[in-house]
């Protein structure tokens, strides 16, 4: 697995990179690649969502520098901004790995492993995908699949500006409260260290998954 840290990106810029890699990985030209980035402020609406989950006008959001895009991932509405680590695994699923819910489970396992590195045990909420700590959402999951190559992925709040989360109903749910690693641990978090930890969790959980499937 190759890892590329794109730094801070505009949403569409990173989306184009994802699409290019999806083609290369499905053609066998590139190996499985994990993209890591932080997005400039943006709200994205997944296939299950609509503007109903956004509580501010387009004009107000634009005046605050927040773009809004309808995108081709599963799930509802979410918010990205610097201080949130977004990871896009562009992975080719083969044989028995061709199960999209297993892949969502895999992403949750990666997120849980990442939080464990900070001593945080996240909660399972059957039916509500994502990462939950102390009843609040710290990470969101949503994927797309083309030719059994995955894109989109998992976004974890490290220390973003949390205020714009109040502009949306995260995941389309009215009562969801969101949190960040900084809020949970009550201390500053080194973002580069967090990226390394996330990369490590991807590698650990991938290794475990392949060890299990080859037995």
């Amino acid at each position, binding site marked *: 697995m190759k890892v590329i840290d794109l730094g801070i990106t505009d949403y569409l810029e990173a989306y184009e990179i994802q699409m290019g890699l999806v083609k290369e990985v499905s053609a066998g030209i590139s190996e499985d690649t994990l993209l890591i980035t932080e997005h400039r402020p943006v709200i994205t609406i997944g*296939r*299950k969502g609509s503007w109903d989950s956004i509580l501010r006008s387009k004009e107000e959001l634009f005046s605050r520098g927040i773009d809004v895009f309808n995108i081709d*991932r599963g799930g509802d509405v979410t918010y990205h901004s610097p201080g949130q680590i977004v990871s896009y695994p562009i992975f080719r699923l083969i044989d028995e790995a061709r199960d999209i819910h297993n*892949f969502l489970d895999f992403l949750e396992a990666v997120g849980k492993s990442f939080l464990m590195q900070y001593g945080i045990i996240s909660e399972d909420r059957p039916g509500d*995908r994502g990462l939950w700590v102390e009843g609040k959402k710290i990470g969101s999951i949503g994927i*797309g699949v*083309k030719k059994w190559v995955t894109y989109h992925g998992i976004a974890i709040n490290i220390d973003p500006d949390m205020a714009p989360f109040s502009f949306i109903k995260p995941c389309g749910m009215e009562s969801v409260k969101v949190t960040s690693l900084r809020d949970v641990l009550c201390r500053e978090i080194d973002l580069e260290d967090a990226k390394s930890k996330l990369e490590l969790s991807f590698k650990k959980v991938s290794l475990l998954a392949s060890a299990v499937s080859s037995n």
Partner: protein
Amino acid sequence: MAELKLPELAEGVNEAVVSFWHFKEGDSVKEGDEIVEMATDKAAFNVPSKASGTLKKIMVNEGDTVKVGQSLAIIE
């Protein structure tokens, strides 16, 4: 004539919702082209064509719920 069917997406998942047709009736399509995007709870899945030809008939509309194995379109 080839039927485009909803493949198995995951164990225990019996249906998905049509989110977006990438082609319209009458379009030429090639084997491997992504024809239609389907959605389950947290995933958007593109169904590729197994045949080249003309997209003759679209059997289900955007927003429809479709069972695994159900016909989505006819390609000939």
